[in-house]
C-alpha cells in the first residue's frame, strides 16, 4: 500500500510542478527578468565573479525560463510529493480519523506553513542580483537549518501535544504545543545568522513582487499536491 501511495505522491508532485511552472512562467518570470536587468546594469559591482548576465551563453534565458524551470520544479515536486506520501502513509489513521482527501489537504496546509512560510520569515526568497557569491555556503546551510528547525520543532510539538492530551483537555494540549513550536522557532530565528544582502538601490517593489510570486508559486504547488494526492489516495484506500 505504501508503494502505491509513494508513486502517486511523486506523480502528484510532478503534475503540481506543471501547474506551478505555468503560473511561474506568467507571473514570476517577468520579475526575474527585471532583476537580471538590474544585475546587468550594475555588473561593475562584481566584475570578478560569474553573474547571471555574463553567463547568458551557457544556458540561454529562454531555456532557463522554459525547460530549466520545469525541470527544477518537477524534481522538487517529485521529491516533496514522495515525502508527502510517506508522511501521509504514516499519519493516516494515526493522527485522527480524517478522510483521505481531508487528511491530504490538512497535510499540505501544514507543509506550506512549515516549509515555505516559517523559513521564509527568517530567510526570504531572493531574486537574482540579491545575495553575495561569497556567502552562498553560509546562506545555504542557514536556510536548511531553518527548515530543519521548523519541521523538527513541529515533530517535537506533536509529541508534546500527545503527552499532554493524556492528562488535560485536547484544546489546551494543542495550544501549549503550538506555543512550544512558536517559542522554538523564535529562539532558532534569533540564534541563526542574519542575512542582509539586498543592494541599497534595489527596487523595493520588485523585491516585493518577486517574493509574492515565489510564495504564490509554492502555494500553488503544495495545494495541487494536496488536492491531487487526496483524490488518488482515496482510490488506493478504497481498494479491497
Amino acid at each position, binding site marked *: *500500500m*505504501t*508503494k502505491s501511495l*509513494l508513486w502517486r*505522491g511523486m506523480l502528484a508532485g510532478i503534475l503540481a510542478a506543471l501547474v506551478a511552472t505555468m503560473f511561474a512562467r506568467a507571473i*514570476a518570470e517577468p520579475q*526575474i527578468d527585471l532583476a537580471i536587468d538590474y544585475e546587468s546594469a550594475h555588473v561593475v559591482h562584481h566584475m570578478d*565573479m560569474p553573474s*547571471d548576465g555574463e*553567463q547568458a551563453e*551557457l*544556458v540561454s534565458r529562454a*531555456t*532557463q525560463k522554459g525547460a*530549466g*524551470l520545469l*525541470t*527544477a*520544479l518537477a*524534481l*522538487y515536486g*517529485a*521529491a*516533496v510529493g*514522495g*515525502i508527502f*506520501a*510517506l508522511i501521509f*502513509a*504514516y499519519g*493516516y*489513521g494515526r493522527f485522527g*480519523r*480524517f*478522510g*483521505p*482527501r*481531508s487528511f491530504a489537504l490538512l497535510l499540505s496546509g501544514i507543509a506550506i506553513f512549515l516549509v515555505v512560510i516559517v523559513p*521564509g520569515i527568517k*530567510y*526570504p*526568497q*531572493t*531574486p*537574482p542580483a540579491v*545575495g553575495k*557569491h561569497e556567502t*552562498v*555556503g553560509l*546562506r*545555504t546551510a542557514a*536556510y536548511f537549518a531553518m527548515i530543519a528547525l521548523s519541521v523538527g520543532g513541529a515533530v517535537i510539538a506533536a509529541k508534546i501535544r500527545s503527552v499532554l492530551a493524556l492528562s488535560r483537555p485536547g484544546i489546551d494540549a494543542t495550544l501549549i504545543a503550538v506555543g512550544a513550536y512558536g517559542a522554538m522557532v523564535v529562539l532558532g530565528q534569533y540564534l541563526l545568522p542574519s542575512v542582509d544582502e539586498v543592494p541599497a538601490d534595489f527596487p523595493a517593489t520588485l523585491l516585493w513582487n518577486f517574493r509574492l*510570486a*515565489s510564495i504564490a*508559486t*509554492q502555494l500553488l504547488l503544495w495545494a495541487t499536491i494536496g488536492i491531487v494526492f487526496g483524490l488518488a489516495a*482515496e482510490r488506493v*484506500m*478504497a481498494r*479491497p
Partner: protein
Amino acid sequence: MSTTAALFDDHFIPVQGGSAIPIEDIAPWAVFGTLIALIFLYFVSTEQGAIALFDGMYVHEYVHDGRHLLGFPCH
C-alpha cells in the same frame, strides 16, 4: 463538529480492516523514497551553489530560475 462535517465531508476509510498502515509496510519505501527525494532536492537546491560535484555552472544555470523561486540561496 457540524461545520467540520460540512467543510470536510469525506469519511475515514479503514486500511484493509486495520486503522493504519503497518510500519513494516512503510519502512522500506520510506528509505527508498527519502533517498530519491534527497538526490532530487540536492540538484535543485545546492549543486554548483554551496557544493559542487560536477565542474562548471551548467546545472546551476539550468535550474537557476526554479532555485530562486523555491527560495534556495543562489550565487
